[in-house]
C-alpha cells in the first residue's frame, strides 16, 4: 500500500486526466494504472530522483510555459527529406502533416488504433514500459501508458526510404500533454525517426521500440530550444539478435528535462548506442538517466553524454550498465562529461556498473571541469578571437556525442544548431 501522502499526490495528479476504458488499449491502460498505484509518483527523496526535483512533473497542474518564437532560425531537420507528422499541443495536425504512406511501413495513430479490435501494437503498448519498471520504478512512464491519448504506431517490414519526422509544436501556455509511440521493426527492417519541438508546457512522452533480428533503428531528436517547458521522456527498447539501436539527443536550454532511456539487449551480438549533447544557460536543469541491461552474449553498448553549462545551469547524468551472468563477451562503455563555463553551474553524476559475468570489458569515465586554458591560449596565439576560440573548443568537446549520428546531413544540421546557439549565448 502506498503511504497516504504519496497516494494523495497521485490522486491529485490524475484527477484531471480522463481515463479511456475498453478495448485492447483500455486493458493495457488499466494494467498501467494499477502499476502506478503500487509505485506512486516519484518523490524528491527517492534515490532515483536524487539530483532532479520531480515537483513540476508531478504537480496537479502543469506550470505555465510561454511559447517560443525561434525567430528567423529555420526549424531543425528542414533540409532533410522526410515524412512529417505534426502534433500541436499533443493533437494531431493532419493539415500540416504528410500523407503517412511509406513503402514497407505501416503508420497508425494511437487514437484510431484504439477503436480497432485487433492491432499489432497490443503486443507492445505498455509491455516494454512494464518490463522497464524493474529493478527501478519509472512511475511517470506508467502514468503515460495509463493516460496517453495520442501517439504513433509504426511497424516496419522493409527498409524505410525516408525518415519519419515527429514534430511537436507548442501553442498553449498551459498545455499538459502525454504522447505514447510504439515502434516495431521486423527482422532486417530499418528506420530513422526524427523528433523535434517543445510539444507543450509540460510534456510526458514514452516511446517503445521493439527490434527484431538484425533490425536497425536510428533516432535523432532535437528537444526544441530556449523553451520553458518541463518534460519527462522515456525510451524503452528491446533488441533481438544482431539488432542495432542508435539514439542521439540535442538539448539546447529548456527549464526542466528528464530523458530516460531503458534498453534491454536480449539477443546475442546486438548493439545499442545512446548519446546526448546538452547546452544550458541559466534556468536549465537537464537530466539524462540511462539503464542498459546486457542479457545476450557479445553485445555492445555505448553511452556518450556531454553537457556544457553556464549561469547556474544544472546537468545530471545517471547511467547504468547491468551485465547479467549470461552476457559473456559484453563490451560496455560509458562516458559523461561536463564543461562548465562559469562558477555557478553544477554537474551531478552517478555512473554505475553492476556486473555478474566475468568475461566482459566494461568501463566508464566521468569528468567535469572548465575550458582548458592552454588550448584557449594556443588558439588565441594563432589569432583566433577569444569568443570564437571558446566556441571552437566547446564544439570540439561536444564532437564525440555528435559523432554518434550516422547520417552526415543530420549531423551537420545539429552541429549548425549548436554553433548558432553558442553564438547567441556568448559571453
Amino acid at each position: 500500500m502506498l503511504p497516504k501522502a504519496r497516494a494523495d499526490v497521485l490522486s491529485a495528479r490524475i484527477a484531471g486526466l480522463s481515463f479511456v476504458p475498453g478495448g485492447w488499449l483500455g486493458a493495457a491502460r488499466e494494467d498501467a494504472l494499477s502499476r502506478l498505484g503500487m509505485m506512486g509518483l516519484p518523490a524528491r527523496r527517492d534515490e532515483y530522483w536524487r539530483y532532479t526535483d520531480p515537483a513540476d512533473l508531478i504537480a496537479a497542474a502543469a506550470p505555465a510555459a510561454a511559447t517560443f518564437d525561434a525567430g528567423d532560425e529555420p526549424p531543425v531537420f528542414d533540409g532533410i527529406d522526410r515524412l512529417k507528422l505534426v502534433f500541436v499541443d499533443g493533437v494531431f495536425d493532419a493539415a500540416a502533416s504528410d500523407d503517412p504512406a511509406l513503402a514497407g511501413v505501416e503508420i497508425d495513430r494511437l487514437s484510431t488504433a484504439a477503436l480497432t479490435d485487433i492491432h499489432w501494437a497490443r503486443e507492445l503498448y505498455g509491455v516494454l514500459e512494464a518490463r522497464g519498471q524493474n529493478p527501478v520504478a519509472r512511475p511517470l512512464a506508467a502514468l503515460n501508458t495509463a493516460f496517453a491519448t495520442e501517439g504513433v504506431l509504426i511497424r516496419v517490414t522493409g527498409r524505410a526510404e525516408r525518415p519519419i519526422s515527429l514534430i511537436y509544436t507548442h501553442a498553449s501556455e498551459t498545455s499538459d500533454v502525454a504522447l505514447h509511440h510504439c515502434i516495431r521493426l521486423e527482422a532486417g527492417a530499418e528506420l530513422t525517426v526524427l523528433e523535434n519541438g517543445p510539444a507543450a508546457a509540460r510534456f510526458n512522452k514514452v516511446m517503445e521500440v521493439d527490434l527484431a533480428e538484425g533490425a536497425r533503428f536510428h533516432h535523432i531528436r532535437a528537444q526544441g530550444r530556449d523553451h520553458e517547458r518541463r518534460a519527462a521522456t522515456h525510451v524503452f527498447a528491446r533488441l533481438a539478435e544482431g539488432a542495432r539501436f542508435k539514439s542521439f539527443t540535442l538539448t539546447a536550454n529548456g527549464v526542466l528535462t528528464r530523458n530516460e532511456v531503458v534498453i534491454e539487449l536480449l539477443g546475442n551480438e546486438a548493439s545499442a548506442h545512446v548519446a546526448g549533447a546538452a547546452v544550458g544557460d541559466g534556468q536549465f536543469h537537464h537530466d539524462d538517466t540511462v539503464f542498459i541491461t546486457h542479457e545476450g552474449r557479445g553485445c555492445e553498448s555505448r553511452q556518450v553524454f556531454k553537457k556544457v553549462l553556464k549561469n547556474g545551469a544544472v546537468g545530471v547524468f545517471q547511467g547504468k550498465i547491468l551485465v547479467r551472468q549470461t552476457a559473456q563477451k559484453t563490451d560496455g562503455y560509458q562516458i559523461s562529461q561536463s564543461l562548465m563555463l562559469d562558477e555557478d553551474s553544477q554537474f551531478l553524476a552517478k555512473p554505475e556498473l553492476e556486473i555478474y559475468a566475468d568475461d566482459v570489458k566494461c568501463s566508464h569515465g566521468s569528468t567535469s571541469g572548465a575550458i582548458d586554458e592552454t588550448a584557449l591560449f594556443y588558439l588565441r596565439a594563432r589569432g583566433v578571437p577569444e569568443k570564437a576560440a571558446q566556441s571552437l573548443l566547446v564544439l570540439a568537446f561536444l564532437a564525440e556525442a555528435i559523432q554518434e549520428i550516422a547520417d552526415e546531413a543530420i549531423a551537420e544540421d545539429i552541429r549548425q544548431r549548436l554553433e548558432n546557439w553558442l553564438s547567441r549565448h556568448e559571453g
Partner: protein
Amino acid sequence: MTALETELRADVRDGVDRETIDTVQAMSGSYKHGWETEIEMDYAPKGLSEDIVRLISGKNNEPEWLLDWRLAAYRRWLKMTEPRWAMVHYPDIDYQDQYYYAKPRSMAVKPKSLDEVDPKLLATYEKLGIPLKEQMLLAGVEGAAEPRKVAVDAVFDSVSLGTTFKAELAKAGVIFCSISEAVREHPDLVQKYLGSVVPPTDNFFATLNSAVFSDGSFVYIPPGVRCPMELSTYFRINAENTGQFERTLIVADRASYVSYLEGCTAPKRDTHQLHAAVVEIVILDDAEVKYSTVQNWYPGDEEGRGGIYNFVTKRADCRGDRAKVMWTQVETGSAITWKYPSCILRGDDSQGEFYSIAIANNAQQADTGTKMVHLGKRTKSRIVSKGISAGRAQNTYRGLVSMHPKATDSRNYTQCDSLLIGDRCGAHTVPYIEVRNASSRVEHEATTSKVDDDQLFYCRSRGMDEEAAVALVVNGFVKDVLQTLPMEFAMEAQSLVAISLEGSVG
C-alpha cells in the same frame, strides 16, 4: 577437495591461472587466525538496554558527561532504522541476542604493565604475530634498512590489554593509550574531540557504537611533533556472541605527523558476529595522518556460515589548512563489509587520499569505498580502488566525490578497477559525483574486466609462460595500493594478498 572447489576449478577460464584462483580461494579457505583462546570471561548480561549502557560506562569509571552522551546516543538509536541501501544481503540482526561487553576475568584488576597481563592473553597476540614486548619489530627482517619500532595497543574483545612503548612516546609528548584511559587521564582532549567528526547522530551503526563502545585507542600528537614510531592497534574478537564496538580517536595537532596501523582477526565460528567500530581523525593545520588497515576478520566458510559483519564508520576531518590524510585499506576478511573511510577536506589546500584493495571470495559481500567532501579551496583528493571478486562473492565500490561551491580550484582523481575471477561473482561500481563549481576538476575512471588477453599476449609473445604472465598482470592490478602501505603492514598485507596474487612470480 570439496565439491565447491572442484566446481570452481572446472570454471577456470583461459587467462586466469589456477594458482591465482587457488590462492584467492585459500585466503578464506585456510583462514589462519581462526583459533580461539580458552580463557575465563566476564560478560555483561546479554542484550541491549539503558542499564547495559550504564554498566559499560560504569566499568570504565566514566564521568557523568560521557554517560549522558552514551544514553542520548542510545535513545536516538532506538528510533533509527538499519540502512539497507548497500548491495549486501543478510538476515535481520537480533540486537538483543548478543553480548555488548566481554572482558577476560584476569583483567578485572587492570594490570599495571604488560608484564602483569595474563600469559594466555600475551600468548594469543604472540600467536597472531603481534609483539606486545617492546622489541624491534623488524629486527632481522631482510630489506629493512634499520630496525624500526611499532607501538601496539592490543584490544581483546571489549578491553584494551595494554599499550607498548608508552614511556618513549610520552618523551616526545605523544599520547597513545586506550580510550577508556584517555577519558580518565585526558578528559579535556577527549571531550573536545570525541564525536566532533562522527557525531553520535551520524548513522545507525555509529550511533550504536556511541552508546556501547567499550574500548579503543586514543592518540594525540602535539604541535610540531613527528611521532617517533608507527602506532598500531590490534583488534581481536575472541568471545562468542559478542559484538565488538571499539572507538578510535586520533588528533594530529598543528604540523604533526603520525602513521597508524590497524589489524583485526577473529576465531572461526558458525554464527555471525557484529563489529561496529568508529574511527575519528582530527587533523589541524599542516599535520598529516596515515591510517592503514589490514582487515582480516573471519570471513565465514565457503557456504557463508559464520563470519564477521563489519559495519564501520571511519572519517577524517582535515580541519586545518594544508592538512593531509591518507587511508589505505586491505579488506580481505568479514562476511559482510560496510565501510566507507571518508575525508572532509575543510581546510584550504588540504588533501585526502584513499587506497583500497577489497577481495571478496566464496559468499563474502563487500560494499566499500570512500567519500571525499571538498569544502576548502584548492583541496585535492585521490581515490584508487581495486576490487577482486571470486567464488559467489559480491564486491561493490561505492563512493562520493563532492565539490562544494566554495571549494574552488580543487581536484579529484578517481580510479576504480574490478577484476572478476569466475562467472558466479559480481563486481559493481556506484560512484556519486557532485560538482558545484567550475574551476574544480573531477576525473573518474572505472573498469571491470577479467585478466586482459592483450596484456597476456604481450607478455607471452616476449617469452613468459602463461602463469608468469597472469601473475604479472594481477600483480600490476593491486600494486598501486600495496605500495602505499607502511613497511610494517606491507608484510602482513603481502602475506594476505600479495603471496596469493603475486605468488607465481617468485
